[in-house]
């Protein structure tokens, strides 16, 4: 079977820096081109040169699939242009900025009969996956409480890419809570295996009042079946924090509890001024790309669907609605 020919549309999402070389080196995929015309055109050009692929201004339709790494407000236009041409879609998160656009994206892919996947990191991390397996085997009993923490550094510190749209109230729309928390909202849905019923959230700009968008928030969600979860997410890690990300999941069931404290295999490095833990292996990125490529090759539903991406977005929008209202809201 031929490798899946994949183009990269846009180079705004920080994940693109990781995914591009992985796609180029993938055993079952080939990178066709990188199309980026915006602020990150220079970054895309350098990456294309490094990987020996063309840098295009516009996406072409000479591919089996695309990875969309534009800013999220542009996702819908790209999907509605490429899906009808039979091109499968890996669309980075958030799937869209509004539920309406998210629905349109899901319908566009469904109508065209192409595969649509949204990559979420915890789904591919070994710790959360180990917990999920035990939940599915019934080892924890009925899930009652889940505590999640997912905080990172302000993405402006990510070297090599202009991610300033993430702190722009119109381009990114969501701030730190949305940027980082969306991964965990999807993970909560996946771990608990139910849909959210009600949510209460407090989201604000307190950590980084200099930014125009929020930097931290906590959501308390009640799920079908009665489980309750908390999620604190945002850009709460100061630059000096030893890891970019601080992520934890604690799941309490009627028969047992499980906890993941840090999702990555690290190496430690220290110099005169600071100590860092660098993620030495990103199995989650490998898992997400493998899953998408496999779904396209075998023509099966990917493990994270467009619908999952849409549900996570709707949950996120409900968090913001609750925070603005100051009361719990129904999903």
């Amino acid at each position, binding site marked *: 079977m031929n490798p899946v020919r994949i183009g990269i549309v846009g180079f705004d999402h920080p994940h693109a820096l990781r995914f591009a070389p992985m796609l180029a080196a993938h055993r079952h995929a080939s990178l066709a081109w990188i199309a980026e015309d915006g602020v990150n055109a220079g970054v895309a050009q350098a990456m294309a040169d490094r990987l020996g692929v063309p840098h295009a201004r516009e996406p072409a339709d000479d591919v089996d699939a695309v990875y969309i790494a534009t800013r999220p407000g542009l996702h819908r236009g790209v999907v509605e242009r490429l899906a009808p041409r039979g091109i499968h879609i890996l669309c980075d998160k958030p799937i869209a900025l509004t539920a309406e656009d998210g629905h349109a994206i899901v319908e566009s892919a469904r109508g065209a009969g192409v595969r649509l996947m949204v990559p979420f990191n915890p789904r591919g991390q070994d710790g959360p996956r180990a917990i999920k397996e035990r939940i599915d085997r019934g080892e924890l009993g009925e899930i*009652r*409480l889940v*505590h999640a*923490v997912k*905080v990172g550094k302000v993405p402006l510190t990510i070297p090599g890419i202009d991610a300033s749209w993430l702190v722009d109230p119109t381009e990114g729309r969501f701030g730190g809570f949305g940027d980082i928390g969306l991964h965990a909202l999807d993970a909560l849905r996946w771990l608990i295996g139910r849909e959210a019923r009600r949510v*209460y959230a*407090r989201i*604000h*700009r*307190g*950590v*980084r*009042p200099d930014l125009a968008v929020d*930097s*931290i928030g*906590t959501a*308390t969600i*009640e799920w079908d079946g*009665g489980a*309750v979860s*908390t999620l*604190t997410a945002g850009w*709460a*890690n*100061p630059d*000096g*924090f030893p890891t970019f990300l601080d992520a934890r999941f*604690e799941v*309490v069931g*009627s028969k*047992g*509890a499980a*906890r993941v*404290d840090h999702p990555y295999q690290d190496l430690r490095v220290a110099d005169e001024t600071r100590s860092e833990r660098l993620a030495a292996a990103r199995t989650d990125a490998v898992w997400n790309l493998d899953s998408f490529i496999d779904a396209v090759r075998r023509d099966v539903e990917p493990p994270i669907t467009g619908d999952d991406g849409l549900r996570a977005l709707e949950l996120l929008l409900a968090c913001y609605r609750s925070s603005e209202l*100051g*009361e*719990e809201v129904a999903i």
Partner: protein
Amino acid sequence: MTLRVGVVGAGNIFERGYVPAFRATDAVRVTAICDLDPGRAAAGAALLGSARVAASHAELFAFEDLDAVFILTPTHTHADLTVAALEAGRHVLCEKPMARSAADARRMAAAAERTGRRLMIGHTRRFDDRWIALREQVTAGRIGEIAYLYRSEHAFNGAPDGGWQWRDDQSGGVLWDVGVHVTELFHWFLGELPRAAFTKVLHARPESQAGGAPDAAIVTFDFGEARHAVLSVSWIHPPGWGPFYATTEIVGTRGKLESFDRDAHPALVVGDRAEFVRFSPLLSALANTFRAEVEHFASSIESGTPFVVTVDDAIAAIDMIEAAERSARSGRTEAVDS
């Protein structure tokens, strides 16, 4: 000088928290003890060697050789016992939660005011070196303005089915019994009351369903536009959860503070299975915490100086919990009254 103390209530907190403290300090000497269960009172007296057993708290309050009374009984009895002890002319150290209601807590405060006796509530976190060290980092400005405060205390409650801790009217469950430690910590660290509380509680275990007291609670406190605090307490974690008992995270405009119990255990011992050596018989406090609390109580009375945790502080902690409880019942955010 040694403060002569009468103990009311020879239960769990007496045995695990106070007895080791009494043995380790000469700041207080227990001269009398009573308990509704005379056998437990006698056993408590035997643990301490010198105390005589009183038949009732009224008899104990009337003993001559007594400067202060420690109320170590179930929460719903604190107010009446404290008021009676104060009116008998004794200083009082009363275990947390101060009372089962804010109204009762204020009745206790009024009695202390009226009688001119000293009243302290046993908020042990104030005497725990870990939280003192955290607070020092905050007050030194190390992390800037606090934007977010999280505190969890998660464990298995092994109290017997039908016991007072599972009775909503007597303890208020984990929300009151453990939650008040957390609200006191929030008030201590932030120096103000929140505007409002939103609460979710569970009644997950059969003991909780039978007694009506919640066994898990999550409260979000609204401290204004740019600050919130989250309390998470549970009695439904598995019995072996100990090493992960408490988590504290504080995020400020310039940095972040963390304290995890999993990092605090002095040793990991591995035989057929792995086991953390506990840092204290009571997971929630260091071994010397109760001793520090008792010595502070005695020395403040002797010198006439204020307690580090005042009656008003304890009332603030209760006001926060009462608002949280109202929210659990109404399903809406509730204002924190003071």
